[in-house]
């Protein structure tokens, strides 16, 4: 081998290196911005993403299979673990579906309690978003401030249901009983504890303050605006094609809110607006959620005025047997449309339960939206989607 050849070889090696062939960057499943165990396999050149493949399933718990071996009462306990930051909102569509199948009428007061707790769950979920989204962008203070304020909401939920994250408060035909109801105790449903309304209204004032805080800290911050405005724009047709719902869809200009559309819980007696924006970028998705917290505050204030007195539980048999039939029941979860397709064959357990979880559909747009973005924008876009991995994997 002559020295000439050697030189030639090294030159060849240098020119190959200068071409910088695409690098594969494995983001996750243990990564600070993937909210748990999402994994993204990205082909990048420089900091630009050429192609991205999300890998999910690290938290797949098989809830659809598990539901087939559980009674309806046991599934209620299971479903509020799907999207754990808004546990109560997951129970509602399931219990409504079972009630539809059984033809059970729910007393008014129980419906209003469900409504109030759903909205509390919505606020608490959005507060988690308002804390984690700035964190993705590098601001750590909103995280602590919003989690501090969420504590007020969790306290209210715990006051009523006994659980902060997993209320498991809904029962077919009403709400949770105090005890089993033996010879000494009467079977009695858990009504709202004394002073609840006063504390709720006080908490709502605090929530308004935290909305103002987040406006000061995040909305008005030029760095946030520079990082998010025009980043990750989803046009409405793409959003519909990928099944985006909730704030993610409403940020794209489609004012679709099941609370207005679907006839469930007494939302029709309440005056509130559907928050929607037209930009479809990360900043709009953030603004929609902040706006929804303000609307939820409005809803809860009205609900506290409107809630009637009365019974809480319709009589249902002790052993729940659900008549055969198929029903799809959906409700507006903080993250979007949450639905259950219940196939009953007349037994104690469903024959098949399809869980339409919101984050799963919302995340399915990731390969499309992240193509051609920069790595810092990936973080901003994913943060703006507000997903929970338990909700993706089920």
């Amino acid at each position, binding site marked *: 081998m002559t020295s000439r050849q050697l030189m030639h070889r090294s030159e060849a090696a240098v020119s190959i290196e200068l071409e910088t062939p695409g690098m594969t960057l494995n983001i996750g499943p243990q990564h600070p911005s993937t909210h748990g165990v999402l994994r993204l396999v990205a082909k990048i050149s420089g900091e630009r993403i050429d192609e991205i493949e999300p890998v999910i399933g690290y938290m797949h718990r098989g809830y659809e299979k598990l539901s087939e071996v559980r009674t309806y*009462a046991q599934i209620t306990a299971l479903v509020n*673990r799907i999207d754990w930051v808004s546990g109560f909102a997951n129970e509602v569509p399931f219990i409504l579906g079972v009630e539809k199948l059984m033809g059970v009428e729910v007393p008014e007061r129980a419906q209003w309690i469900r409504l109030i707790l759903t909205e509390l769950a919505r606020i608490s979920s959005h507060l988690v978003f308002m804390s984690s989204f700035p964190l993705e962008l590098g601001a750590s*203070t909103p995280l602590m401030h919003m989690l501090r304020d969420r504590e007020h909401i969790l306290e209210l939920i715990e006051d009523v249901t006994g659980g902060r994250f997993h209320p498991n408060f809904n029962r077919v035909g009403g709400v*949770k009983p105090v005890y*089993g109801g*033996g010879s000494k105790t009467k079977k009695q449903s858990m009504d709202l504890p004394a002073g609840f309304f006063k504390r709720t209204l006080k908490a709502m004032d605090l929530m308004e303050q935290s909305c103002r*805080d987040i406006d000061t800290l995040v909305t008005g*911050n030029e760095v946030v605006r520079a990082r998010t405005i025009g980043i990750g724009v989803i046009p409405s047709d793409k959003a519909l094609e990928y099944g985006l719902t909730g704030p993610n869809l409403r940020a794209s200009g489609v004012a679709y809110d099941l609370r207005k559309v679907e006839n469930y819980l007494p939302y029709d007696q309440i005056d509130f607006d559907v928050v929607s924006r037209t930009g479809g970028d990360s900043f709009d998705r953030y603004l929609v959620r902040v706006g929804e917290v303000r609307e939820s505050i409005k809803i809860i204030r009205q609900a506290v005025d409107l809630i009637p007195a009365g019974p809480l539980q319709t009589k249902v048999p002790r052993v729940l047997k659900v008549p055969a039939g198929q029903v799809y029941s959906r409700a507006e979860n903080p993250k979007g449309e949450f639905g259950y397709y219940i196939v009953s064959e007349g037994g104690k357990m469903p024959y098949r339960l399809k869980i339409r979880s919101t984050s799963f559909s919302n995340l399915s747009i990731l390969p499309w939206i992240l193509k051609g973005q920069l790595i810092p924008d990936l973080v901003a876009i994913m943060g703006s989607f507000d997903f929970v991995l338990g909700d993706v994997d089920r």
Partner: protein
Amino acid sequence: MSRGIKFAIPGLLKGMGLTLRTMLKKAPVTMYPDVKEIPVPRARGVISLDAEACTACMLCARECPDWCIYIEGHKVEKAPSKPGGRVRTENILDRFDIDYGLCMYCGICVDVCPFDALFWSPEYEYSEMKIADLLHDQERLGEWLTTVPEPPALES
């Protein structure tokens, strides 16, 4: 930058004002092991057992989604309440264990108990170094009974 420097600088400074104000305020922190928060009466902390009331009917063990309740019992003959009456049998509880390593705190067992034997207690300090120690036996479950609060007053 999107809105021009006229909006940018005040926006940035307002945020700094908020953090400074927060710094000067007292932090809302409960120093846990020294100061303890009192959980609400309905808090689902731990399940307590009134063994006197339990009839070993197995309802809770059957309804438990996690299969974490273990009950054993035997039947005994009970003397007739009045002479010449029918001889009845009674269930005697031998073992009642809840495995808190498995329990998911759904409260179905408390809901279904028809004899007022199970109650929620808001106590929460029973973590263990070994998972096996989380299996609370009848005696341990009975100790929790003293911590069960009265149900709270209701909103009228």
